[in-house]
């Protein structure tokens, strides 16, 4: 490290500390209210919106299960403040400590609350841990841009404990960890066999348009196939209200299948990306929250690959 960069780093550290101290006193309140959906099981439903200064990044569903061996938290929210407020909300319901925090995948609203919890309690699939290590910094920076001072003092913390798929007994709750992929490289789904609650993470959206920054659409569809065959009593999607049936799974599938057809067709028709952005959306999707913005984002994220397929020489071969 050069002397200059050391000085620069010290200055940044002092500056960051200053802000942390200043802003810690003025933590914004997410108004988190856990809703009981099954025995020992609470969900905190976020808004069906984009990240913004107004919502502080609380567009995500988090959940917790109170077991005899401690509390299992599923996703920690978009910021340090969210994580701390989640911990306080749990403490209002039980005096059991949080013994396990599961990050379903490496998107910022699902792990940036990790700081609030004991490092040893954090766990995720190996590719999620890797994703937080490699992209956590830039995802965190982007959240500061989008949510402003709600993010005060937030730093990415990657879980140290890698999870493997399979059963996990936790204080009387028979959990099943299901390792899937498609929304990101690793999507953890948790089925609580004791209550029948299925925590689907961002493989399932309900009433809100799915996000696709790391999506692999065929793998995502395969994951949805598997979820649709899983029996459950309640389905907790990553975004949108809790459901009692497979409706949100089919809704997510329908959107992704349409998006795939739309982009493939556009690329085969030789459309420029600016032309794809102006194509009208079918009426059936008008009811999905933030559909226009997510469509635009998905075109930007996914269209180059469809374009490349349409332009490559492969297609000419019979």
């Amino acid at each position, binding site marked *: 490290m050069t002397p200059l960069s050391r000085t620069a780093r010290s200055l940044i550290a002092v500056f960051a500390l200053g802000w942390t101290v200043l802003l810690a006193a003025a933590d914004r309140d997410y108004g988190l209210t856990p809703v009981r959906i099954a025995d020992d099981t609470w969900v905190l439903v976020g808004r069906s919106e984009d990240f913004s200064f107004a919502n502080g990044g609380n567009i995500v569903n988090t959940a917790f299960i109170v077991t005899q061996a401690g509390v299992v938290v599923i996703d920690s929210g978009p910021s340090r403040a969210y994580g701390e407020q989640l911990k306080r909300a749990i403490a209002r319901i039980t005096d059991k400590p949080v013994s396990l925090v599961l990050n379903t995948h490496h998107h910022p609203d699902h792990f940036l609350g990790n700081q609030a919890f004991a490092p040893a309690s954090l766990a995720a699939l190996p590719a999620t841990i890797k994703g937080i290590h490699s992209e956590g910094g830039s995802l965190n920076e*982007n959240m500061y*841009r*989008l949510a402003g001072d709600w993010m005060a003092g937030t730093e990415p913390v990657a879980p140290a404990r890698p999870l493997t798929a399979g059963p996990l007994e936790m204080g009387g709750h028979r959990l099943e960890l299901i390792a899937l992929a498609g929304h990101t490289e690793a999507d953890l789904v948790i089925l609580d066999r004791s209550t029948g609650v299925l925590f689907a993470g961002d493989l399932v959206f309900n009433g809100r348009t799915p996000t696709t920054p790391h999506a692999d659409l065929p793998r995502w569809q395969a994951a949805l196939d598997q979820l649709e065959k899983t029996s459950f009593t309640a389905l907790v999607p990553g975004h949108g209200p809790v459901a009692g049936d497979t409706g949100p799974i089919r809704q997510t599938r329908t959107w992704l299948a349409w998006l795939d057809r739309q982009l493939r067709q556009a690329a085969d*028709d*030789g459309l*420029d*990306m*600016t*032309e794809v*952005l*102006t194509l009208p959306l079918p009426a059936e999707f008008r009811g999905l929250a933030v559909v226009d*913005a997510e469509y*635009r*984002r998905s075109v*930007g*994220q996914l269209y*180059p690959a469809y*374009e*490349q397929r*349409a*332009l*490559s*020489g492969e*297609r000419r071969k019979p």
Partner: protein
Amino acid sequence: MKKQALAALTALWMACACSAGHAAAPAERRTDPLDSPRWADMRKEMFPATAQVIFDDRVKVTAPLTAENAMNVPVSVDASALNGVREVLVFADFNPIVRIVRFEPSGAHAALGFRIKLQQSTPVRAAVRTADGIWHVGGTWVNTAGGGCTLPSTGSGSPEWQKRLGEVSSRVWARKEGGERIRLRIIHPIDTGLAAGIPAFFLQDLDLSDDQGKALMHIEGFEPIAENPVFTVDIPATRAAAAYRVSGRDNNGNAISAAIEK
């Protein structure tokens, strides 16, 4: 003396009034429709002082109002409503490197689709010089969280592009409106030189011609063109050919040469 000055002023006013009266397009305006504080600088930097520069709605610049990915912002320029287009210069007022691309549509439609890197929210403009020497300027604001120009390309972090540098994939479509559309993608990392330790590396010249070697479009690229650039070019029916060719080079002298077959 005073009288002379007054007469001169009157004459000047008459001349202005007349030329305004003669202007064919009602769309012409003399103040920046994008209301950018940088326009006066742009006017000085991009055009000779003596050039006639007008705002003209017939120059269409299409880009998303909000660009989510500042490294890859799609932009289409269409000046085909104007006759006698000689060259088109695309620039962004607030980019650290203002010039994006310049093209001469000698045989192609006066239109080009491409993708760019933006550092912050900015007007993106196309200035179109017609045969009479007048510059017609159109544009649109693009809002973005930014950072696109000072990040390294993903290519520069991987050895993959070195093996495939300059590789072209392309395809030709018949257009409903008549004529043909060529889309092509070139493997190139395109670094702006603004990311620490990574020198500027970009496509400098591209020539699109038909299989007889007759020119269709000359494209001069600058640093803010996005990585692995994709271009969309439309060819009028009168210039449609059995096949096409693209050739050119980057600023390090690496050649690009490929047939574009149907």
